[in-house]
């Protein structure tokens, strides 16, 4: 992931810039199910699952991103993957649901810095102003020609989840956007 490590702040002094780096390795699960299963997962995971559209929730490093009305992306530290899987499987026994390990399916980037909205707006069609996309909002969307999951983790920081084979493309577009100041 050399291109990520080599990311530099943007804009030749035009902007205060943005930084792109790889997120820490993560365990990931797609959880899908109905109300009973949702409540079960929340209590087993120790993190409430947002029922409000496009909102993330997290606690003790375990993250649940609302992706659809019956779909959440669960993220945990890589080392906890096995534990989370077994805890959830045990809690959900007998409750109809789908839990699928997608740890290796996605890669994640952290994009941060004062120019982060402009940089992501080089490819993302959503309004990233904090009034429209506040901290804690998450959604599947597009970044140029790649589908991503975008989550605002702080006023000037986003997490970008992307299917593994699209990572070089997303990194490439981000590198250009960082260089151009968006």
């Amino acid at each position, binding site marked *: 992931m050399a291109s990520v490590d080599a990311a530099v702040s943007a804009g030749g002094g035009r902007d205060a810039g943005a930084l792109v780096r790889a997120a820490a390795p993560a365990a990931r699960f797609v959880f899908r199910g109905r109300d009973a299963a949702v409540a079960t997962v929340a209590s087993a995971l120790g993190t409430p699952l947002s029922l409000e*559209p*496009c909102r993330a929730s997290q606690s003790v490093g375990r993250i649940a991103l609302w*992706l*659809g*009305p019956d*779909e959440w992306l669960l993220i945990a530290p890589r080392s906890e993957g096995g534990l989370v899987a077994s805890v959830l499987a045990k809690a959900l026994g007998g409750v109809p649901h789908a839990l699928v390990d997608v740890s290796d399916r996605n890669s994640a980037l952290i994009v941060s810095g004062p120019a982060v909205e402009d940089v992501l707006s080089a490819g993302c*069609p*959503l309004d990233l102003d904090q009034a429209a996309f506040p901290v804690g909002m998450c*959604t*599947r*969307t*597009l970044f140029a020609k790649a*589908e991503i999951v975008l989550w605002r983790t702080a006023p000037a920081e986003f997490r970008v989840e992307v299917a593994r084979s699209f990572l070089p493309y997303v990194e490439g577009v981000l590198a250009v956007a960082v260089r151009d100041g968006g």
Partner: protein
Amino acid sequence: MLLIHCPYCAMERPEIEFRHAGEAHVARAPDPSQLDDETWAEFLYFRSNPKGVHAERWRHVHGCGRFFNALRDTVSDRLLVTYKAGEVRPELPPQEHSR
């Protein structure tokens, strides 16, 4: 690029996140084998294509992933209202028709 209100995300999102999915309220028969050829052909191939308000399906494919329905005026290309799959087609206030 249109803005489309996704009834599941409960917000307007850009058209490129969506995919059109044909006419709405064309239900598949519970047991197609009971249909004669003509009725089945009607289901397969015949669509209304109106000038004016058209009920059509969209999917928020690069968003929440849900299929939903929309009423769109094919003359103005305005999306008049969107509603969840399974909901009945809403009545429009009269002025919406004429726009």
